[in-house]
């Protein structure tokens, strides 16, 4: 039985104060919900998305093939996060390009498209916006908040910003902040976009262009960091794009411009696809939100001190081959929670797929999340 998703949107007239000191007013948030909110509104689970995902978390759009939500393997009737038991909410973050107010929309103050003038939003700002959506939906306390990667940062931030509104936080393949190397990858991606002549200082909409070259490169470098060396080798190895008809390796093209190896054409394809649908300013905003996230910063870098505010129970999951958000980073969060004597479980899944593993099926990963939500469900009235 397929679950059909219906995108919704909610408008917020009141200004949302941002960490930068700026504010956003007259904005909308796109969201989807799955399952039913119980009578005492105690079974809501908020899903936070990562870099290039959206509010379309689970289910399919009626009449549209291959329109599964980005975490459809995890969330749905009878799945690890069971929508027969929980009321699941997916929300698109501010600054995104999938429906919620973003840089491609009109700035009510100027009457012009925001473009690069869209205010810089942080993980904390997103969480505040999500909290307002929950207010509007009449949900005071979340049974759980869950996210992977940048989504995991939001889940962690929920526990810090609204400790009384979260009972469980499920933080997958995430980190308490980005390392210098990680910021460096983001910077390469941003420079690829901003130095594309079609970027026009971020106001490319007015020029009727899209900095596709920059977006392609940004996606290519991102994609490399989401995979592991082993998986890439297994999938592509040194295979040439042009294999001969008998299945043997063909001859080299001896070209520097043609895509010679399969990995090259794969990355080019991924880059092309991404540049067709993703907004350049959104990419800049979201990578910046990743860079800025650092809850320990106001505590002199002391994460244990920073996490003292969190009172909910935690499940953390990391993947051994994830080098973009390595297990070491998850362990830092676990340690800070242990220092505060918080309830926490931590699973380190030995999966080969690198950072991407958090979106893939692995029976150990799914089993732990599923069992965790079983125990959350026991606290929730039917």
């Amino acid at each position, binding site marked *: 039985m397929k679950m059909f998703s219906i995108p919704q949107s909610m408008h917020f007239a009141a200004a949302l104060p941002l960490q930068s000191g700026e504010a956003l007013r007259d904005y909308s948030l796109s969201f989807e919900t799955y399952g039913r909110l119980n009578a005492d509104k105690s079974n809501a689970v908020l899903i936070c998305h990562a870099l290039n995902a959206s509010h379309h978390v689970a289910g399919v759009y009626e009449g549209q093939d291959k329109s599964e939500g980005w975490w459809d393997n995890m969330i749905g009737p009878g799945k690890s996060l069971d929508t027969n038991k929980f009321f699941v909410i997916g929300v698109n973050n501010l600054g995104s390009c999938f429906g919620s107010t973003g840089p491609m929309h009109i700035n009510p103050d100027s009457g012009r498209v925001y473009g690069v003038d869209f205010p810089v939003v942080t993980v904390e700002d997103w969480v505040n916006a999500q909290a307002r959506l929950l207010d509007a939906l009449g949900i005071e306390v979340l049974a759980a908040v869950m996210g992977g990667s940048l989504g995991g940062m939001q889940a962690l931030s929920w526990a810090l910003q609204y400790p009384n509104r979260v009972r469980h936080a499920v933080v997958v393949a995430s980190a308490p902040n980005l390392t210098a190397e990680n910021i460096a990858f983001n910077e390469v991606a941003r420079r690829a976009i901003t130095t594309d002549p079609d970027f026009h200082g971020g106001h490319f909409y007015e020029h009727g262009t899209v900095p596709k070259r920059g977006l392609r490169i940004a996606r290519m470098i991102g994609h490399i960091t989401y995979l592991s060396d082993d998986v890439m080798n297994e999938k592509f190895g040194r295979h040439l794009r042009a294999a001969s008809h008998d299945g043997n390796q063909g001859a080299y093209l001896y070209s520097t411009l043609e895509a010679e190896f399969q990995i090259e054409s794969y990355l080019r394809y991924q880059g092309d696809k991404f540049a067709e649908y993703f907004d350049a300013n959104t990419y800049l905003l979201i990578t910046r939100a990743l860079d800025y996230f650092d809850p320990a910063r106001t505590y002199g870098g002391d994460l244990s001190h920073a996490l003292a505010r969190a009172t909910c129970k935690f*499940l953390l999951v990391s993947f051994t081959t994830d080098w973009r958000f390595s297990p070491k980073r998850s*362990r830092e969060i*676990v*340690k800070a929670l*242990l*220092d505060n*004597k918080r*309830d*926490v*479980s*931590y*699973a*380190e*899944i*030995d999966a080969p797929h690198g950072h991407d593993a958090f979106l893939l099926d692995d029976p*150990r990963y799914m*089993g*732990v999340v599923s*069992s*965790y939500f*079983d*125990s959350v469900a026991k606290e929730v009235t039917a």
Partner: protein
Amino acid sequence: MSDHTTMHAIAKLVPEGARVLDLGCGDGALLAHLQNTRGCTGYGVEIADANVLACVKRGVNVIQLNLDEGLSMFADASFDVVLQIDTLQHLRNAEVMLRETVRVGRVGIVAFPNFAHWPNRLSVLKGRMPVTRRLPYQWYDTPNIRVGTHADLAVLALRSGLKVLDSFGLQEGRTVRFAPNLLAGTSVYRLSR
């Protein structure tokens, strides 16, 4: 040591309401028992995926960690009791772990198979490594890489500067105070810094 009588004998050593760290907690049965019957709180540490899953299923906090990488995640004296039940004999860094146990816990409780139990001695005397209910493995497939006796641990504790608060044997769930090195299949130590 999955039998219930042994588990209950160990559980009795843990004070009511204690904050417990169970190193090599297996499927979390002991921790769940301590939580449900003695009001204890705490965490288990496990490396095996199936055991981590079993703990989450039981609602026991579990941290997936390789104990051979140490206990740096845990602060000094952050637990009332650190349990190492049938764990020590699997560890490459058994000596370090013993010291870590009493660094992290005010009291460490260590239980492990006593290779000097008389049936084991008899077996070795006959020229063969022991295979018993307590030690069901062949020499070539045993996960017990540290083969020690009740008496050996006393020597190691002394050498590592640990205080032995109590030590005794366990056999069929009963406490063995007389000649435990000979008469008990399981050796138990209560240690502190």
